[in-house]
Structures are given as structure tokens and as C-alpha cells.
């Protein structure tokens, strides 16, 4: 088990290097540091000196991947790629192009993101599993048929509709909750209700339908027939036997996205004015602040890899058949 985790951690290194190469290719080959400097300094007639200063200040003065002026190993070390990505590996994100401390921003902004994402995930999971179990219980009846139709309709509606419609009905017509904003502490809950609710409703169609398929697949297995042959009631069959088996794919599917909850949701956060990492990222995209985007890409990649690892580990926890070697 330990050996497995260590091996996976080692395997993460080449992947993260790959991720860095991709982002660097995207950011620096199409858009050179000179262009960035010009854009940031904003004026049409920027002097060469100003550009050089800007670059040096932010560490963009070296060549990209290979420094022909330096000696030996230094020709790889004195490059933007090396200096910038080495720092990322120790989670030192440095300063954004507009001069803010990215690590500090992240540590501040991940809490609002979590405050939305975690309840949204948990409530969504609970509701979807409950519905799916009910549908599975009434399988091959009209209830099943229409429930599936409703699921398809719900998942065909754009998430933008849920947000705009939800804000309009709940916030503007009924005036039960504030439309947007955020406040930490216990009074902040009123700000969370709407985004969480909308997130849950928006995801309910596809996840209910997916879980229903898992339940039905499980109910066709031989062991269910064995349980029925024992004279066990259908509800017990569902809850004690089918649910436990069906939770394996459901939970492991959830585990992989758990770490990514930190990143928040771009759309929800910007619609509801929540100062989380999602809106942070959007702002950075709109301001073209590459240092932040790069840091978020790296962070996302790390979290994804952790998610994969957690998935494997969670298998060994919930499924007695799986052993990591």
C-alpha cells in the first residue's frame, strides 16, 4: 500500500512536468514575454527599457527553455521554464503579474469555494441516490418511464437557465434570498442557499439517471436472485445488498472530483459574486494574468492526480475484492 502510494507520487512528477510544458507552450510560444509586457504596461509607445524592466522584475528576462549564454547545466537552469516551474513544485506560486501574492490569495479564496462546493456535492449526492433508488424500486413501471423522461428533460436544460431562472424566481420575485454576494460566518448561510440549491437542481437529472442505470445493472446480477430466494423483502434487497454494491462505482466516481472542489466552479461563483477560486480564475482570465492562470492549472493538475490516487485507495476501502499492489 505504502509502496503503491509512493510509486504513484513518483509517477505524478513526469505528469506535472508535462502539464507545465503544455502551459508554457501555450503561454510563451504564441504570446512572448515582450507582448505580455506591452499589454500590461498598456501604452502604445513603450520603450524597450520599460519592457526589459518589467520582464526582469517578474523573472521573464531569461530565454524560454534553453539559455545559450549560460554554461553547462546552467543553460537549462537559467530559463523561464526552469525557474518558474521549479517553484511550482514546492507550491511557491510567487506573485501575480499584477503583483499580488498568489499563495495568499489561494489560501483566502478556497474557503468560499468549499462553502459552496461541499454542500452542493453532498446534498446532490443524497438527493440523486434517493431518487435513483426510488426509481429502481419502481422499475419497469410508468413511474420509472416518466422519471427517466423527466431526467432527460432536466439534463437538456442549460445550466445558465437554472442560474438565471433561479436568481429571477427566488431572488427577484419571491425575494427569499439575496441574489448574490458572500459573507463569512453563520450569517453567510443565506448567501449560500441559492447557489447550492441551483447547483443541486442543475445536476439532478443526469446523476439520477446515471445512478439508476447502476442500480438496475446491479439488480440483474445473480447474487440478487440468491437474496430473493432467501425470502428477503424487496426493500431490504435494495438497501442492504444492491445499494452497497452500487455505491462502489458511485463513491469512487465522486472521490476523483473531491480534491477539485477546492477549485470552485467558474460559472456559479461569478454569477453569485462569491469570492472563491473560481471567480479568481475567471478574473485572471479576463485580465490575462498568466501567472495566476498558470498557478491554477498547476494546482488543478496536482489536485486531479491526488483525486486519482484517492480513487484507488477508496476502492480498497469500499470493495473488499480490491488490493493495491
Amino acid at each position, binding site marked *: 500500500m505504502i*509502496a503503491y502510494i*509512493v*510509486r504513484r507520487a513518483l509517477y505524478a512528477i513526469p505528469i506535472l512536468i508535462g502539464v507545465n510544458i503544455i502551459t508554457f507552450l501555450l503561454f510563451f510560444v504564441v504570446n512572448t514575454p515582450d507582448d505580455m509586457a506591452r499589454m500590461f504596461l498598456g501604452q502604445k509607445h513603450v520603450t524597450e527599457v520599460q519592457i526589459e524592466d518589467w520582464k526582469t522584475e517578474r523573472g521573464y528576462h531569461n530565454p524560454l527553455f534553453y539559455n545559450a549564454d549560460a554554461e553547462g547545466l546552467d543553460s537549462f537552469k537559467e530559463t523561464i521554464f526552469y525557474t518558474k516551474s521549479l517553484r511550482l513544485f514546492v507550491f511557491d506560486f510567487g506573485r501575480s503579474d499584477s503583483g499580488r501574492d498568489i499563495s495568499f490569495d489561494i489560501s483566502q479564496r478556497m474557503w468560499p469555494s468549499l462553502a459552496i462546493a461541499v454542500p452542493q456535492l453532498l446534498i446532490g449526492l443524497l438527493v440523486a441516490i434517493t431518487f435513483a433508488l426510488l426509481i429502481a424500486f419502481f422499475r*419497469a413501471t410508468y413511474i420509472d418511464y416518466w422519471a427517466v423522461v423527466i431526467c432527460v428533460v432536466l439534463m437538456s436544460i442549460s445550466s445558465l437557465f437554472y442560474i438565471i431562472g433561479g436568481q429571477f424566481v427566488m431572488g427577484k420575485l419571491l425575494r427569499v434570498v439575496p441574489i448574490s454576494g458572500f459573507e463569512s460566518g453563520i450569517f453567510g448561510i443565506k448567501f449560500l442557499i441559492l447557489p447550492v440549491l441551483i447547483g443541486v437542481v442543475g445536476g439532478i437529472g443526469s446523476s439520477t439517471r446515471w445512478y439508476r442505470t447502476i442500480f438496475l445493472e446491479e439488480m440483474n*446480477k*445473480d*447474487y440478487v*436472485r*440468491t*437474496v*430473493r*430466494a*432467501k*425470502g*428477503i*423483502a424487496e426493500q431490504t434487497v435494495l438497501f*442492504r*445488498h444492491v445499494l*452497497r*454494491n452500487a455505491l*462502489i462505482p458511485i463513491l469512487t466516481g465522486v472521490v476523483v472530483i473531491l480534491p477539485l472542489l477546492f477549485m470552485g466552479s467558474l460559472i456559479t461563483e461569478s454569477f453569485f459574486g462569491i469570492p472563491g477560486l473560481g471567480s479568481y480564475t475567471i478574473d485572471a482570465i479576463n485580465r490575462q494574468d498568466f501567472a495566476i492562470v498558470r498557478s491554477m492549472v498547476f494546482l488543478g493538475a496536482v489536485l486531479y492526480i491526488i483525486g486519482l490516487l484517492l480513487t484507488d485507495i477508496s476502492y480498497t476501502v*469500499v*470493495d*473488499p*475484492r480490491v488490493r493495491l*499492489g
Partner: protein
Amino acid sequence: MSRTLLQVRQLTTEFRSSRRTLTAVNGVSFEIREGQTFALVGESGSGKSVTALSVIRLLPEAARLVSGSIHFEGRDLLALPEREMRDIRGSGISMIFQEPMTSLNPVVKVGRQITEVLMRHQSMSAKQARERALDLLDAVRIPQPSYTIDTYAHELSGGMKQRVMIAIALACKPRLLIADEPTTALDVTIQAQVLDLINDLQEQFGMAILFITHDLAVVKQVADHVAVMKEGVIVEQSSNEVFFSAPQHDYSWDLFAALPAMEKRGKPLLERNHVSHWPTAANATQNDTLQVRDLAVYFPIRKGLFKRTVGHVKAVDGVSLEIPPGKTVALVGESGSGKTTVGKSILRLIQPTLGEVTYQGMRLHEIDRSQLLEQRANLQIVFQDPYSSMNPRMLVGQIIEEGIKALNVIVDAEARRQRVLELLEQVGLDKDAHLRYPHEFSGGQRQRICIARALAVNPKIIICDEPTSALDVSVQAQILDLLNHLQARYGISYLFITHNMSVVAYFADRVAVMYQGRIVEQGEVEQVLGNPQHEYTKRLLSAVPTLVPPVRAA
């Protein structure tokens, strides 16, 4: 005379799909008395399992009970509401299924799966139920009940799982046990133990058994009363003694005739394939004998941080054998003994770790690609599963032609087509089969196509990897007759991989017995089967239920 326990009258069960209705069980009537073992025999699709599932009312959703009545201890089961039927399931009537591998819940401990039924029907406390479960595990002869009760199903072998299934079924001392092919998925030595166990427990608990099987030898061993099913109808019912000495129905006779046995050696199994004698192959030299020397196939076990190889699974561990021209060498063994791996590594479908295979003076594992292509024509293979061995997207003609084309046996397209037609005729299929797809054929017909495909490149040796074990006995008989016929005509040798001793007795010239990757004994069939030397061979042979088919008076 004991009382009637179960009475089934004019039972009819249908499967309905949007397009058609299929009558799986058609007006079946029978009675089971208390303490009696009633065997329902038939080939696949005869409706015997559906009959059993109808009795316990656990039919799949597509199936409907159309008419008839089922009385259990005087109560009409079909009239009972589902709630009362559940009270009967597991306590009055219980059932064990064919596949022990999938019939237990994989994520619930086996102890829990036993106590569940006790707590349901006998209102025991969890503690009492656990005590009782330990007793039951002991009763089904599981070595360490106190350990096994806290394991999961995957930690147990197939035989052990089936014992757990039996423990669950017997937990509430049912009056009727339905056993649906309970030993079919098990190796023959395990089968003997499980049958023994069921027999002992029946005496102990005094229950009746509805025993469903396709294996006449097993029926002979366990049943008091026999019913033969064919296409949803019971064609014959009689006592064990009558059935196995003088069966009434022609279909029963056909079943007996199709059984391979030592006594039938040299004669075709089915009348219509009658040839007066099998000619022996001529003019072959020693060079044409395939020699396998010390063949070994190891699979590495990797562990630790850098996945270093820390050991090997020795699937095949030093196997030597010979396949002389025109002869059939049987390779027998139970599942996991490595017999299929031997077959595939001879063909280089699996690269052997050690040892050599020599044919016509060439070492097959060392020759280069062009020489290997030449040898590929000499050595061919027929697989076990007739469903996965043909590409579903290709026409039968293309499938047979593939080898001819790849090995450049016949270059001219028209000549190739003629050859395909000729091959289809040889394996007893219509010529127009070449323009159809594999899914349009039955299992037996598919296996014929596979034989035609192998024959297409004029091989000297065909490796037959359990070619009949997925087939019914009557179809098996056709395939064995066909293989015999082809051997007589073309002098082909077979390496016949099987676990079925009666097929070996009927079909093979030599036999090699494999056990845990090694050959423990080999020799002429009469000698090995008649006078086994090795402990394992003896055990294997004594486990096989024997059956001397009745002789029909002229």
C-alpha cells in the same frame, strides 16, 4: 408411501419481448414426494431452469407464468400474495444456483449472508444466528468455520462458495431444496464432494430435492425419480431404475447414445454418421511427430516500489509430450492446471519461458517469421467458446478464407471460393452458409465452422481446446464424430484438451494428466484409465460419476 410435497400441474411459462413470444415451459406436470430426489434432465434451452424458477416464483422480468398450478404442502403457490410467498422462500423452499462465483454478494461477509436468512425466518437474534451459522458451515464441511464466517466470497474457492450457498439454502431446514445445476461449474473432484455433501445433508435434514442437471451420470447417482425435458415439455418420467435400464422415449435413447464411453471406441456415436470402421493414417514418419520438451510458462509476480519481479506463477512447469501423426493425444486436467496454456504456447500464441517444441526438425520458438508462417499452416487451433472465436462482423466465408489468404495457400480468388464451399460441405454445413454471419448459427454449427477454418490451411495437427465443453451432449457427439471422420480421412493429429474423462475414454489414443502445471502421468488411454498409477489420477477417476448406458433391444 410418503406424502406429496410439491405438485405442479400444466405449468406454462412464456418469455415475451416486443417482437415475439417464446414458450419456455409448455404444460409441465410432475409431483415430488417428501424426502425424494427428483431430477429434471435436459439440454440447454429445454426449460428446466425456468420450471424451477417458476416454482419459487423468481422468474426474470420478461417471463410470465401463463397457466397451470403449483401446490406446495397443499397451498397454491400461484395464488399467494408476494408477501406470503416470501415467507416460503428460504424456509419452505430454498434454492442453490449454478454459478457459485456470482451468486454470493461480493461486498457482504459470508457469515452475514447466512445469518440474514436465519434472522428473517426464525426470528433469531444476531448472536444466536451467528452460532447457528457456525454450525451450518461446519455441517457443509468447511474446514475453519470461525475463520470463514468473516471472509468475503472472493476469498473462497468455487467449491467453498457452493458450500456456503448450500449452508444458506439449508439454514432454515427447508422441505424442498431446488438445486439448479449445482455442480456444473465445478471441477469433477469438487463435484463429487459437493454431491456427497448434498446426499448426506438430505438424509440428515430429510428434505426433498428438485435436482436440475444436464449430466445423466450425475442423475444416475443422485436421483430417485427422473423427468426428461425437451423443448419445454417433459417427454418421459420414470424411476431411476426403470430409466437407466429401459427408457421409454426415443429422445432418452438419443441422449444415452450420444454419451461418449470407453465401450464405444472406434464406432461413431450417432447412427447417421455411420462408417463401418475408421481407417488408420498411413505413411507418416517420426519427423512428423510434434515433440514438446520441458515446456514452461512463467508469469512474473511484481511487487514493491519499482514493481520488481519477486516470484513467478508457474502456469506450466516442465511439460514434455509427443503428438504422433494421425493420433489423438488428450491433455486432461482441472481448471487452472495449465492445460490451455500448453496448447497456446505450442502455437506461440503465448511465449514459453523455457523448453522447446520441435516439429519437422524445426524448433518452433526459434525460427524466423517466414518459417513460422510455414509452420502456422501445419498447426491449427479450435477454441472452447464457439461464440467468441469468430469475428461477428465477418461473413462465414471470409472467416474460413482468412487463413488461406494470410498463408497464401491458394492465390486464385475463385479457387479459394471453391475451397471454402468444399470445406463447408466437409464439416456438414450448407454451401450457402458462406454468405451468412456467425450469429445466425447455433453453437454446434459454429464449432463446425471453426473446424472448417482450421482445416482450410491443411494442418497436420489441430489443437482442440475443450471444443465440446460448451456444447450439449448430442451436439458434442456430432462434433466428436466429425473430428474422428476428419482424422480418418486426412490423418490429422489432435491435441485434445479437456476435463471430461468420458470424452477421453472414447476419443483419445494417448492421455496426459496435468496437475498444477505438470504432467503427472501419461500413456495409452486404456492403460492410464484402467490402471492409474499416480495418486491424482486415481482421485480424478474415482470422482467421475460412471454410467453404463442401457442397451436397446433390437
